[in-house]
């Protein structure tokens, strides 16, 4: 049921919301999370962010995360779109959508989806700084903690 996409093209949030809700009258709420590229990291100005991924495993991992959300909450739709390649500050890296009849399911599922995506999907960020240097972004302990509060994979 979930829509999973990894793409080089810019993410069109409105188009994905429209696709999720088209012809549906049973949805009471859509919760979403949009991740965007900031222009500063550790006090330094970023000129670009490049996302590398593991084709094949990425789609499998995203599908597994979406399936887990669908097991845990009563969802009427679920969308995960992640951009790869180079992007500029202000651009959207990731879009998570979760739709449900009652809002609590959608709200919890969207938070879960982004927390798990950040720790269980094979993407790697490289920051390009204004001085010409580049650095791979280190994993954040905060992300591991955020993901851990949802417990282990079920089933």
């Amino acid at each position, binding site marked *: 049921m979930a829509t999973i996409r990894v793409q080089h093209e810019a993410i069109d949030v409105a188009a994905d919301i429209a696709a999720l809700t088209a012809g549906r009258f049973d949805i009471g709420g859509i919760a979403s999370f949009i991740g965007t590229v900031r222009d500063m990291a550790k006090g330094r100005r970023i000129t670009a962010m490049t996302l590398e991924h593991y084709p094949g495993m990425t789609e499998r991992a995203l599908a597994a995360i979406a399936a887990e959300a669908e097991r845990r909450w009563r969802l009427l739709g679920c969308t995960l779109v992640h951009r790869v390649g180079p992007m500029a500050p202000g651009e959207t890296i*990731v879009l998570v959508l979760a739709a449900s009849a009652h809002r609590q399911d959608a709200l919890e599922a969207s938070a879960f989806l982004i927390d798990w995506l950040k720790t269980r999907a*094979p993407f*790697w960020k490289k920051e390009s700084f204004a001085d010409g240097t580049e650095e791979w972004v280190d994993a954040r302990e905060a992300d591991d903690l955020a993901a851990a509060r949802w417990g282990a994979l079920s089933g």
Partner: protein
Amino acid sequence: MAESSLHLLYFAWLRERVGLGAEDVAVPPGVATVADLIAWLRRRGPGYEAAFGTTAPVRCAVNQEFATPDAAIAAGDEIAFFPPVTGG
């Protein structure tokens, strides 16, 4: 026993240090786990040593599923090495 052929993938800074993104290797019979494979790879040259011989954490997937160092590997496996993920 014959050598095992493995398809290896490297991502992010591991790819940069090894100097390539993918390769097929034939490993001797004693290389039975991910940890064995890492030990074997480190002897292949300075790029591999730079990738695997650091304190920076390295993660692994066997056939596109996250795996721990004690995971068994077999001929034909696709084995990927990469840093902890940082997507989203």
